[in-house]
C-alpha cells in the first residue's frame, strides 16, 4: 500500500533562517506531487506541484521554492523565512490513472516563524 511521509512534524525557526521540508511517497511510481500551505483558520493554498523529476510548477509567487530530486521525493525550501511563512504545510500525491484523481495527504509539518 502507499504511504506518504513528511518531516519534521513541527519546526520553530527564526525570521531570516533557511527552511527545508521533506516529503517522500512509498508504494507508487511517478506520482504527481503537491505542496499546500494552510494558514491558521484558513483553507488550503496550493504552492507547488510536480508531474515528474525536476518538473516544478509554482502557483503563488513567494520566497519559497520546491525541488524534486527523485521520483518520490519532494522538497520545499526557503533561503530566508518570513513571519508570513508560518503555517501548516501539507504534501500530497495523486495518480491520474486508476485512482481517478483524488489526492492523498501526508500528516503535515507545523512551521512557526518567530
Amino acid at each position, binding site marked *: 500500500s502507499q504511504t506518504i511521509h513528511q518531516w519534521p512534524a513541527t519546526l520553530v525557526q527564526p525570521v531570516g533562517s533557511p527552511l527545508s521540508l521533506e516529503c517522500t511517497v512509498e508504494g507508487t511510481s511517478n506520482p504527481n506531487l*503537491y505542496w499546500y500551505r494552510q494558514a491558521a483558520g484558513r483553507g*488550503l493554498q*496550493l504552492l507547488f*506541484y510536480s508531474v515528474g523529476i525536476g518538473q516544478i510548477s509554482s502557483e503563488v509567487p513567494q520566497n519559497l521554492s520546491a525541488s524534486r530530486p527523485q521520483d518520490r521525493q519532494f522538497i520545499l525550501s526557503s533561503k530566508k523565512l518570513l513571519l508570513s511563512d508560518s503555517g501548516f504545510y*501539507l504534501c*500530497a500525491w495523486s495518480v491520474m490513472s486508476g485512482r481517478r*484523481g*483524488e489526492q*492523498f495527504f501526508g*500528516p503535515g509539518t507545523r512551521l512557526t516563524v518567530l
Partner: protein
Amino acid sequence: AQSVTQPDIHITVSEGASLELRCNYSYGATPYLFWYVQSPGQGLQLLLKYFSGDTLVQGIKGFEAEFKRSQSSFNLRKPSVHWSDAAEYFCAVGVLDSSYKLIFGSGTRLLVRP
C-alpha cells in the same frame, strides 16, 4: 475561473442530529468532486468522491454527498452526527489545465454539542 465555495465557516449541531455541509463549485467541464475531513493538527482524509454515474455517493464514516449539476453543488450529509465527527471539512474540485490539481474550498468547521 475554477473555484469552490463553502458558505458556512462554522456549523454547530447536537450529537445525533442530522448534518448538511454546503459546497458550490465553478468549473466549465464535468467535475471530479471530493470531500475531505481534517482533524486538528492532522492531514486530510478523503471521505468520498464523485466522478460520474449515480449522483448520490456514499463515503466512509456514514457520510454521503449528492451531486446536483443544475445547482453546481455537492453537499455533504450525515443522518446522525457523532461527537467524533467534530473536525474541519473541505470540498474540492479536480481541474485539468497544464496538469491535474485540486481546488479547495475554505473549509467548514463542525462543532458537535453533547
